[in-house]
């Protein structure tokens, strides 16, 4: 089975964010693999181990942005591809999806493309469905479990979640799947894996390599700000016993009209 897993790198979730002249920065906080993508890498590695096959990590980003790829390789991915081109600055999700779809097509003969559920930075959750639509492959979002994977028959069965519950769905391959946290804990990279990843070489493709023009973007974000902090006046509820405190809180909540 040939599996691609798409990974992004993001500032650590505990980072303090700043905006200067419209540029977003996160001080010296480390860049990490998007935490959701670790679940996708874990799923990809397990599927490849069960079915035989290889896992390629695919990342779109600046040339020096290697943390996500390195982490996927250290977890055990067989290969990686970085797509990098200055023309991609400011790409919206449709533009980014066009580039990812072109890279997937160039890699070729892919059975399955896995994504994380969404990125923790810009958080659109759109790439998995847009890449699927561009490739004209079925899109299976928020998958927690792979029930049956039969590449020989060109099909797979997964459990995907929605607000009202789970759907068991059968799909043709190739398909695009986004993986949720319910899939199960991702492995830690082994010491050997980290060493291997630090030495790994992988191609860096430009748009010319992909044979496409810079895709145009419809969405722009002319203004990014820190939210005005809501002035919160915290009132500590006093009382000698838990009962007294509870009684005072009930009165306060009634007065606050939130019940």
């Amino acid at each position, binding site marked *: 089975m040939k599996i691609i897993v798409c990974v992004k790198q993001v*500032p650590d979730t505990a980072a303090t964010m700043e905006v200067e002249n419209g540029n977003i920065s996160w001080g010296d906080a480390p860049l990490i693999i998007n935490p959701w993508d670790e679940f996708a890498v874990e799923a990809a590695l397990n599927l490849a181990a069960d079915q035989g096959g290889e896992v390629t990590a695919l990342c779109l980003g600046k040339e020096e942005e290697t943390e996500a790829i390195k982490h996927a390789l250290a977890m055990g991915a067989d290969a990686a591809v970085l797509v990098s081109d200055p023309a991609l600055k400011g790409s919206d999700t449709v533009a980014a999806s066009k580039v990812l779809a072109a890279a997937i097509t160039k890699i070729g003969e892919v059975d399955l493309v896995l994504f994380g559920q969404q990125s*923790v930075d810009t958080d659109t959750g759109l790439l998995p469905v847009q890449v699927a639509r561009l490739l004209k492959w079925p899109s299976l979002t928020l998958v927690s479990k792979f029930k049956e994977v039969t590449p020989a028959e060109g099909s797979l069965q997964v459990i995907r979640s929605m607000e009202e519950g789970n759907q068991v769905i*059968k799909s043709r391959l190739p398909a695009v799947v986004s993986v949720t946290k*319910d899939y199960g804990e991702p492995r830690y990279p082994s010491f050997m894996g980290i060493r291997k990843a630090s030495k790994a070489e992988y191609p860096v493709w430009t748009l010319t390599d992909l044979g496409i023009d810079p895709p145009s973007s419809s969405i722009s974000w002319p203004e990014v*700000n*820190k939210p005005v902090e809501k002035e*919160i006046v915290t009132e500590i509820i006093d009382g000698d016993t*838990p009962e007294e405190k509870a009684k005072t809180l009930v009165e306060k909540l009634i007065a*606050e009209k939130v*019940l």
Partner: protein
Amino acid sequence: MTKKILTYIDHFHGKVQSSSWEALGLAAKIAADNGGEAAALILGEGVNDLADLAFHYGADQVFLADHAILKDFRPEPLIEIITKAANDYQPDVIIFPTTTRGRTLAGMAAVDLDTGVMVDVIDLDWKGDKITATRSIYGGKLLAKLTCSTSPEIITLRTRAFDKPEPDTGRSGSITHLEVSLDPADQATTVLDHQEKASGVSLTDANVIVSGGRGTAINPTLTPPDDLDEAGAEVWKAEQGFDLIQNLADVLGAAVGASRAAVDAGYIVYDHQVGQTGKVVSPDLYIACGISGAIQHLAGMRSSKVIVAINKDRDAPIFNFARFGLIGDMHEILPPLTAGLKAYLEG
């Protein structure tokens, strides 16, 4: 000028996600301001009755497809109908609620219609000649204002960020039935089964949420059964703690939330997790019990209108974000709090 606004009504087997009505309500407001019209798009099987509801919530006209192939949620057949309807009607704006299905369909529609999506929007300004949408990024640490340069502009709205209108049962309008000519044999996916979620109030729709963290398991007064190992004993204690939370939630008609620490330790399933890697919620009242207030937890709930924190550590960061703070043991405070609120609400 924004004249024609199409709203996708998201539902599951005919049960409408109330964020769909929030979206339709907003569409009706924009249409009224601009002398335009609000249209609703309803797709599914056995959904004819939803048209009346759409009129009550503000639609001027309804596009409806009722067909067996649309019974279960599958994005591929649905998007075919959505794209065709959009190409025929030529809306200026298409609005989806940011439900799991709405997000998926909005993303695909942008590809099909060669445009863009402004996703999970919390505020919208349509007063000028361009629409400006505000969304929250980096776990709520930044806000971005967005515009879309192509038509139709596609927007998904965060649940509970916009008011749900009062239904006006006197309203009606015209219904256009859409043709469905999809071949079942051509479909790439088949839905084999649906597993209902255990009932309970959904986190994202809830007006009130009561959440528990690691503190649910910290209760020295309890003696766990002898046959449990350390981890088992901890989970057993946490279950008693979450029972107290559930009791309060029942009285308030609230949903139950949890911190990631509680989920990771196996106290409660992931569906309940609030935070950056869980659900982002914005209820009127959020009661955090035994939760420290880590930045990733705050990312999921700090836009709640009123936050109450119950924590035995006076220095817990959660108190900086709480309107009301109760310093003490949640296991001691919850029972009288539940009783007091019950007496008030029933009185």
